[in-house]
Structure formats: structure tokens, C-alpha cells
């Protein structure tokens, strides 16, 4: 697929950053891993949590203005409505929320009030069984596509978990996968997969016919290191979380590189409120350069992002809302940067 720059490039505008880290229940993010937006403008944030605070795993609810609206999930565990290592979320046509869990090998379903509706999925390698389910996408017909990570395949289900089909196997040829992570569907029902360890995004028809592959391994424009997530807009532009390169790339429908984003986070409302009551940190921060020049031995994307606060660090999810906003969820920085498509 060509990586030639298009004549008319799509340029996104940074809007703002939302969220801030926390170590307790309530307002704030703990290793956010994915988000969805509902038709009424609410944002649902999946907090995967670290091992030290696993019990705080939950879905947080807020809005674009950063009003905290609540949270749900029944805590850490294998029971109904509980999570252990949740990965990704998707909404179906009735705005029911589907959440994958790579440790429990299942999908849990909630309504937007947080009521647990059901679950499906079992561990295994056979048809319909899951081994480390990661990304999830639901098309207009409510077909559910899941990146079956350690089975190196995509599986399709009905919304009640009835198995519909699968494609892919371990490998690097077209149509094969290496630990796939993110999944997306476009307006035509085609399926896009962040083929994580093959450093590419693959496009398929709804039945798994290979259509195209985007990207090769590397750090250049149009190249990827372990892409984690993909989103596609109604015009066919692709938004790809280039996880290993700590950036987001935007490709045109023909695969041409439109834009490479490294992140430009500013203080969220919650962050501003923190500094309002912590003047010692506010004042010493004001003296600081948060985009430093680093010594050579720390000159990798991961190290650079660990020391450069505005940059993406751990971009695990890219999602679009109906207003053309791009939400980049950063697991390591506990926030979401928002960009606007022109």
C-alpha cells in the first residue's frame, strides 16, 4: 500500500485533554484502556488498573466538559459484572456496552446505567472459544468482531455470543495475524485489524476476505511498531494508535499518510483543579521544561514519552465520536487527548 503523501492532507486540530490519574474510586482514571461515547454525549472510560490497585477496575462515566457522572462494574474478580484484565469496549445498536476481558476470556455486557446484562465466551482454541480476547467492534447489523489475541484470529459472533465465523491464523502473510489487538468496522461493514506484532493494519470484508494491508515495521511515516488500535471514519480515513512508536498516525483511504501526531496534552479541568490547591507543585512546574532534550541512552519513543509529559505515552485506543472528534486514550498517562477532524 502506498505511503505517498496525499495532496490534500487531513490536518486534525488539538482540542483538549480530559482526565487525570487517581488511586481511589470516583473521579479520575487508572490506566484507562478504552473509551466509547454514547448518543447522549456521555463518555465511558474503561479503567484497567495496575496490579497494586486491581480492585478499582471499573467503567467511569463523564462528559466532554469533564463533569464526573459516576462509575460501574462490580469490582475485581470472575463473578458476573466483574473484571480482571479488561481490554476494550464497543456499543451495539441498542447502546449496550460490550467489554472484553483477556484473563477471563469472555465478553461482559452492560446497559449504560451500568446494569449487568450478561456475558459470553469460554477459554479455548476451537470455534467460538477465546484465548485472550482483546479488541472488539460491532457493526450496524450487531455482528460482534473480536481480536482473539492468542489464537491469532478474528472471530465473529451474534450479539448473544452465537458463533458466526472466523478468519486468520498465526503468521505474517496477508490474512494471518500475530497477537491482534484493535478492531474496527467502517460504514460499509469492512473490518480493520491492528495486527499488533506484525506491525501493520489489515483490512477485510465482513466475511474475512483480505482487502489490503497498511504499513510495515519501523519508525518512519506510514510505518508502525506494534499498533494497538484502529478507528475509521465515514470517509475511510484510518486513525491508528502506533503504540510502540508512542504516536498516532492518520492514513487516507488509499493508505497515504495524512498526519503523524505525537501528542500535545495540556492540563485537563481535573488537572487544573489539582494545581489550584497544590501551589508548590504549580509554582515549581511553571519553572520546568516538560519537553526536555534527553541523553542518547534514553532516546527511544518509550523513554522519551516517559519523560515528556505532553506526548502520548501508552496510546492503547483511538475512537471517533459522531462529531468527528478523535479520542486518544493513554494508559500510562491516565488521560485522553482529543482532536477534531476538519
Amino acid at each position, binding site marked *: 500500500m502506498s505511503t505517498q503523501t496525499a495532496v490534500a492532507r487531513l490536518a486534525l486540530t488539538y482540542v483538549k485533554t480530559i482526565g487525570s490519574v487517581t488511586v481511589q474510586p470516583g473521579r479520575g482514571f487508572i*490506566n484507562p484502556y478504552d473509551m466509547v461515547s454514547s448518543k447522549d454525549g456521555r463518555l465511558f472510560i474503561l479503567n484497567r488498573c*495496575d496490579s*497494586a490497585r486491581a480492585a478499582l477496575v471499573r467503567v467511569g462515566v463523564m462528559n466532554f466538559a469533564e463533569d464526573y457522572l459516576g462509575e460501574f462494574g462490580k469490582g475485581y474478580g470472575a463473578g458476573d459484572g466483574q473484571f480482571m484484565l479488561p481490554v476494550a469496549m464497543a456499543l451495539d445498536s441498542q447502546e449496550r456496552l460490550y467489554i472484553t476481558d483477556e484473563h477471563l476470556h469472555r465478553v461482559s455486557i452492560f446497559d449504560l446505567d451500568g446494569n449487568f446484562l450478561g456475558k459470553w465466551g469460554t477459554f479455548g482454541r476451537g470455534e467460538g472459544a477465546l484465548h485472550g480476547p482483546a479488541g472488539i467492534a460491532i457493526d450496524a447489523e450487531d455482528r460482534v468482531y473480536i481480536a482473539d489475541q492468542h489464537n491469532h484470529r478474528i472471530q465473529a459472533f451474534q450479539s448473544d455470543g452465537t458463533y458466526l465465523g472466523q478468519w486468520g491464523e498465526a503468521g505474517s502473510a496477508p490474512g494471518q495475524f500475530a497477537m491482534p489487538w484493535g478492531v474496527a468496522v467502517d460504514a460499509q461493514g469492512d473490518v480493520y485489524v491492528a495486527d499488533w506484532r506484525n506491525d501493520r493494519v489489515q483490512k477485510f470484508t465482513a466475511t474475512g476476505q483480505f482487502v489490503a494491508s497498511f504499513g510495515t515495521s519501523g519508525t518512519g511515516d506510514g510505518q508502525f511498531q506494534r499498533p*494497538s488500535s484502529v478507528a475509521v471514519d465515514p470517509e475511510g480515513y484510518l486513525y491508528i494508535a502506533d503504540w510502540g512508536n508512542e504516536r498516532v498516525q492518520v492514513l487516507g483511504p488509499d493508505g497515504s499518510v495524512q498526519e503523524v501526531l505525537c501528542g500535545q*496534552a495540556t492540563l485537563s479541568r481535573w488537572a487544573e483543579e489539582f494545581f489550584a490547591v*497544590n501551589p508548590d*507543585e504549580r509554582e*515549581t512546574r511553571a519553572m520546568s521544561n*516538560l519537553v526536555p532534550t534527553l541523553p542518547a541512552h534514553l532516546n527511544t519513543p518509550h523513554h522519551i514519552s516517559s519523560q515528556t509529559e505532553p506526548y502520548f505515552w*501508552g496510546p492503547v485506543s483511538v475512537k471517533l465520536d459522531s462529531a468527528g472528534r478523535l479520542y486518544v486514550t493513554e494508559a500510562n498517562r491516565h488521560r485522553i487527548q482529543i482532536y477534531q477532524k476538519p
Partner: protein
Amino acid sequence: MSQQDIALMAHLLRRAGFGATREELETCVAKGYDAVVEALLHPTEAQCMPDDVIRRYHTDMAELRELNSVGAYWMYRMITTSCPLEEKLALFWHGLFATGYSKLNQARSLLNQIEMFRHHGLGSFATLLVELSKDPAMIIWLDNNDNHKEAINENYGRELLELFSMGIGHYSEQDIKECARAFTGWTLGNAEYMAVRASKDSIWPYSRIAWHFDYRDHDHDDGEKTFLGQTGRFNGADIVNIIVQREETARFLSTRLFQFFAADEVDDAGKPVIDAMMQTYFDSGYEIRAMLRTLFRSAYFRSEQARFTRVKGPVELVIGAVRLAGSYCQPTFGADQLARHTMYMGQGLFQPPSVEGWHEGLEWVDSGTLLERVNFVASELGNVSNPGVRNIINRLAAEDGGTFTPEALVDRCLDLLGPFQVAEDTHTALVGFVARQGAVHLQGHQPGDATEQLVGDVLRLATATREFQLA
């Protein structure tokens, strides 16, 4: 391939690494002792568990904010590395240049210090001391960010001389002050903000910001200084250059390396080895690699006298058991517990009790830590589903038709776990345990069946012996 060769190679790999399986020992013996020493001393690109796979599964090991997450992350490297001396030496430097989380609240920068040890740990001691002086975690740990041109802080200068290079008694209080003056201006980027965050343990608003070195020329005292009898407008690197030329430094470093890699106690036979390491230190331009080569190739180190003369430190005990058991070779749920286990045994990574580091040797063992040590190792090596234990069982099943007398089974287990020997009364007790089951037949064994469990129990008991606690 003689049993003596196997025993010698096992000794080398226990000391220069974290032990080895029988298959690894056989491969190394085939290469030859000196070739293995050189391979250990020249780590290339280490093959180990891929970083991306760890970070995807362990969210906490992507962020590396939590103390035990960072400890476990390093332990994954120790468990799976193809260059074990690189990690063992990093562990040595971590003990010598002990830097702790409690004051820093900055786990990633501690791990960056370990990466610095990997880069410079086998090279020139002069370079290592300069890099240590520039290490942001060390700077905060010993307050060099508070060491200013107009108001010195002696903490780093004092420990550089006392604990990191020469040892007490070889310098004056005035030397400490002059040393501190030379290191004024050696600080970290955004020092004021980072110091406030460290002191408050603040992660807000967007989690930790890792640290990097920053030199502030305007805060450096460029005046004349007299240090250990030499006078000049010394900067920090000049001070290090004077330190590394001292015989006291050579003896300090040689002795510490000897005690970590050769024997807890320096006996009369060990003293000439230390002298030889000191000579190598000067001959090689202060190169650690050359000093270790002198040690590992010495007749003393290769002799039976040197074997089992060190108490395994908690980290080397745990890593050695896991490597032998073949567990934790993939990202494993709850891996951060590994770091907690060594903490319970008295050696939490990045949690040294003070800037002095850990007290080693017999001080590793008390009634509480011994229980932790035995329970952990026994659970790993008594678990017949662990891949390394399965290898031992399969190997036994292929020997002599898989039939063993109780005494033969005990001896084979001691051999494949080490080889090591146990006291006579211990041996009698182990044989007696097996004898209660009668002869052992491994033909047709099935995973987890009673015969396999019996072998697992022998391994479990063998690793619970006094002798297994020694390296």
C-alpha cells in the same frame, strides 16, 4: 563429559549467573570453561522475554510506577536473559550503590539506573563512577540536587568516598567538602519540580515523569580545590579520576567483587586472588571485565574449596529456582508477587535497608526468612507441571529404564538440581522418605501421576536442605 566438568560449570554459572539446568550445563561444558567465561564477560544483545509482550500484558510494567512492578520487570529479565552475568553484575552494583524507592518515589528512574549498570558495569570503573554521579536517582537519593555553589551538601561526596570507592579511613573531612564542591551543579532536569513531587509522592496530574541528568554550570563551584593531596579547579569527573588511581580503591573494589562472586568470607587462600584482581585493575585501566576474568580463571575460584561458600541472596535464590523450574517464561498473572517474595526474604529490589546496601552472607538467613526461602523454592521445584521439573522427570524416565532404588533416585535428584551433596543424616532422611514408597518406576509415567509426584516431593525436600541455600 566428566562429572567434575559439570560441577565446575555449575559453580561458574551459579556465581556468574543464576544457576543452570542440566541441559544448559552440558552445552556450556561442550564449549569449554574459558570460552564460557569470555561469553559471560561479553554480553551481546541479550535474548530475553520481549519488552513489548511484557508491557502489553502487564499494564503496570508499561507504566513502571509501582515498586513491585519494577522489581518483577527486572526479574523477568533475570529469568529469561541469555546474558546472565549482565544481570548478576547489575544486581551487584545495585547492592553496592544501593539506591532506594522510599525516598525517591520514582521506580522508573531506578530501573534506568539498572540499565546504566548494564551499559557500564563491565567497563571502566572511572566511567561507571562518573555515570553514577550523573544518575538522577542517585542525585535525589543522596541529595546532590541540594548541593549548590553557595551551600554545599556533602552527602553524595561523603558516600562516594566511603561506600562507593575507597572505604572509610582513607580521606579527611576536608576531602569530603572538596569532593562535594566539585559536584556542585550536577543535578537533574526540572530539579525543583521533581524534588517536590518526590517528597510528596505526587503522581498528579498525569503520573510520574521520569528523570534525566542536567548540569547547571551557573551553580557549579569552579574554584580551586585540594583533594587527596592534589590541587586544581576540579569538576566531578576530575575527582573520580583521582579516586580511581588510589590503591585503596582497587582493594575496595576487588574485595567487594570477590565477596559477591567468590566467597562471603575472604580466607588466606583468597587474599592472593584479591591482590591479583588489584593488579589487573591497574593494568587494564580500571576495567571490571578484566578483574572478573582474573577472578573466574583463578585456580582458587575453580577449586572445590570455593564452592558452596556463599549464602544465596534472596534474589539469586528465587531467580535460580525459577530458571531451574522453567516457570515465568511467559508473561504470568501475578508476576509482581515474585518481587514480594524476595522482599519477604529480606531483599526487596530497589528497597535496600540503607545506602550501605544489604548485609549479605549468613545475615540473609533467620528463622523467618529461612521459612520463606524454603517455601518458595519447594513450591517451584516440587511442582511437577513446571516445564523444568518435567524435563528432570523425563530425563530420569529415560535413564536405566526409569527404575530407581530410593538411594539412586535421591542421588540423581541431587545431581540434576546441582550437582550438590547433602550431609549424611540429611541423605539418610531423604532415602528413607523414598524407601517408604519402595522402588520407583517411571516407565509409562503420566503427567502428575503418583510416581511423578514422588519425584516432585524428592525435589521439594532436596531444595529445602541447608546445602541448597548455598551457592
